[in-house]
């Protein structure tokens, strides 16, 4: 009887329990709030053009803005620096199935990260395919796995991913991939797409990951990994050796280092970390879901902004951020089918004396 009761209890708790284990409140306290505002209706689509779930957003050095999203098909749109729709890139190419993120490298090439095809597709600024890394599974082989409930496999192959999540670049053009849902690792390639190194297994120790979900580099080539399931940012050096853990900013769905991908030395850089929960979260936690933390690169928290919601300036699951300009943050949101241009006003921050 007791066993029956416990089983029933466990079953009742399981959905909520598993959900909670994937989300945790940031442990940092008394963090000063950075005043912010959203530019109203910044992104403008012509009639008949829609974005679906906005998964990725990135800017180029020339001011172009790219949004990678899940609509009827997964699509990549380009906008002007004023938010006007320009064109579509890579429509119906073989590497697009289920958008996850987009990044722009130092030469303004556009990298689409697709978790449906396990592929990175590198486009020139004009939209031509320059390189791919990873490979889509053979559809005939996939038939044997239908209905397609994939899971963690830790395959750890040199040129295959398992729902990889994001990409970053250092000043030498090396490519860093967070991989991902079905692997728990970070992979480094040289600028020609040749495998260099991979580190990481699944777990919660050093150089272990529980869904590395977002990745960014600083000007020195250090690598910041949003280790979402472990509720921490893990910092690696350029050779993927462990450096540090920043454990107090919640579940980092998205990480971003300001200054752009180079080659110009950006000077002082900041790390932004989004702890954005799904907006299906209870109303109560709205104040600490949808928050974005601003950190020094050494992990010192500078401030935070944002809360969950659908109004302008609120966020419903930020999936990627662009912070080329540390005071202008572009956010791509899943649940609100939108991206926003957020202006930060750090000079208006109230200094707090609280510890």
């Amino acid at each position, binding site marked *: 009887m007791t066993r029956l009761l416990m089983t029933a209890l466990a079953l009742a708790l399981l959905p909520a329990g598993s959900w909670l284990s994937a989300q945790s409140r940031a442990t940092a306290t008394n963090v000063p709030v950075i005043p912010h505002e959203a530019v109203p209706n910044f992104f403008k689509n012509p009639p008949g053009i829609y974005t679906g779930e906005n998964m990725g957003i990135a800017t180029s050095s020339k001011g172009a803005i790219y949004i990678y999203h899940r609509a009827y098909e997964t699509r990549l749109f380009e906008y002007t620096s004023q938010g006007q729709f320009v*064109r*579509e890139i*890579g*429509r*119906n*190419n*073989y*590497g*697009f*199935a289920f958008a996850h993120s987009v990044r722009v490298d130092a030469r303004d090439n556009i990298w689409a990260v697709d978790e*449906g*095809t396990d592929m990175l597709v590198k486009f020139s600024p*004009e*939209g*031509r*395919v320059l*390189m*791919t890394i990873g*490979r*889509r599974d*053979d*559809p*005939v*082989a996939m*038939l*044997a796995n*239908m*209905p397609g409930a994939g899971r963690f496999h830790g395959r750890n*192959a*040199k*040129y*295959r991913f398992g729902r990889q999540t994001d990409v970053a670049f250092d000043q030498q053009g090396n490519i860093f991939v967070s991989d991902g849902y079905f692997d728990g690792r970070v992979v480094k390639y040289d600028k*020609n*797409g*040749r*495998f260099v190194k991979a580190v990481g297994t699944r777990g919660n120790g050093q150089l272990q990951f529980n869904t590395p979900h977002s990745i960014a580099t600083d000007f020195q080539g250090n690598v910041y990994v949003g280790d979402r399931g472990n509720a921490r940012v893990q910092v690696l050096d350029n050779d993927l050796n462990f450096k540090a853990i920043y454990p107090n900013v919640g579940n980092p769905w998205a990480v971003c280092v300001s200054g752009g991908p180079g080659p110009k030395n950006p000077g002082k850089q900041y790390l932004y970390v989004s702890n954005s929960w799904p907006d299906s979260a209870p109303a109560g936690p709205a104040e600490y879901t949808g928050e974005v933390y601003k950190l020094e690169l050494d992990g010192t928290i500078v401030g935070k902004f944002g809360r969950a919601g659908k109004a302008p300036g609120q966020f419903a699951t930020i999936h990627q951020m662009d912070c080329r300009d540390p005071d202008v943050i572009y956010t791509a949101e899943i649940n609100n089918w939108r991206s926003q241009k957020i202006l930060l006003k750090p000079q208006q921050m109230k200094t707090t004396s609280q510890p």
Partner: protein
Amino acid sequence: MTRIITAAAIAAILAGGTIAAQSVPEISFTATDLLRTPTEGPFVGEVAGVGANSRGQIFVYTRTGHPYATLGDNRTFSRGGSKLFLFDAKGNFVREWGQDVYGFNAAIGLRVDPQDNVWTIDVAANQVVKFNADGSVGLVLGRKPETIAVRPAAPPAPGAPAAGGGGGGGGGQAGAKLPPGSGVPGSGFNRPTDVAWDKAGNIYVADGIGTNNRIAKFDRDGAFITNWGSTGGAPGQFSGVKAIALDAQGNVYAADAGNKRIQVFDGNGKFLREFGNIGTPLAMCMTRGATQYLYVSHAGDEDGMDDATIYKVALDGKVVGKFGAAGKLLKEFGLANSIDCRNENDLLIGELTNWRVQRVSLK
């Protein structure tokens, strides 16, 4: 003592093998990334097959997306996934061929025959389709699996026929009472990979990388003549037939990938000889000159990024040269799955993982 002798013999063989590999001369070459499509698309994906016709027009059969499964119907079937594109001789996109045909799902090969007909081979539809030079369908070999399974198949009832076709589906295969590939007319292919012809127009299908491991021969109208081969490593057996080519005498060269060899048969399937030293053969092309050569693409790893080259081989099996290596740059290859050698020293190389066709000029 015996062991020492054996070890010495093995060492000698290994050394000999190394020397043989080192002695293959490098053929110097140049390469260009050939294909140009509009920036707004369509996009060339994994190039499964490339071939030129007598006018220099270039056909590319490419994987462009995912096959879609229909849901909510009585029969769930898949559609789409691959396309056939026409380019001019300079590589500029002209138009799509065979839009929305029934069996373009997972491209695996393309060949242009001497009459400029275009043949596509599809590894998911299990079909070889001949397009006439005007673009109409001239011949269909094999049948696309009628439906796909969307949940794990239940164990077959005792005495039930084996499912036809590859990939866990295939209800409605004609001749399903016999195992696929048993050689009777109507028996299905199982992941066919390539097609070739003799001077009489007879058709030879490499069948393939599924469970059949055979070569099937049909007359020019598609009537079944014979087939040979089974799974294994003995002469006449195959472990994945990835490519096929015929010489001017009508002998059949089959790329037996898993056994790392080329097997040679006469046109009736009689085993003649075999040769190796060509790595793991992925694609082949037979030149058309008075002295014929085979180009053989080798990829030693699954994704073709660590160990790859293209060999030029005399028909007696002597490797006369090689060019290219694995990688993503120009003059490197990422799974070179298709070779067109209409001109002996001016080749078209189609690559899967690099999504491109390189025009290669050998010096």
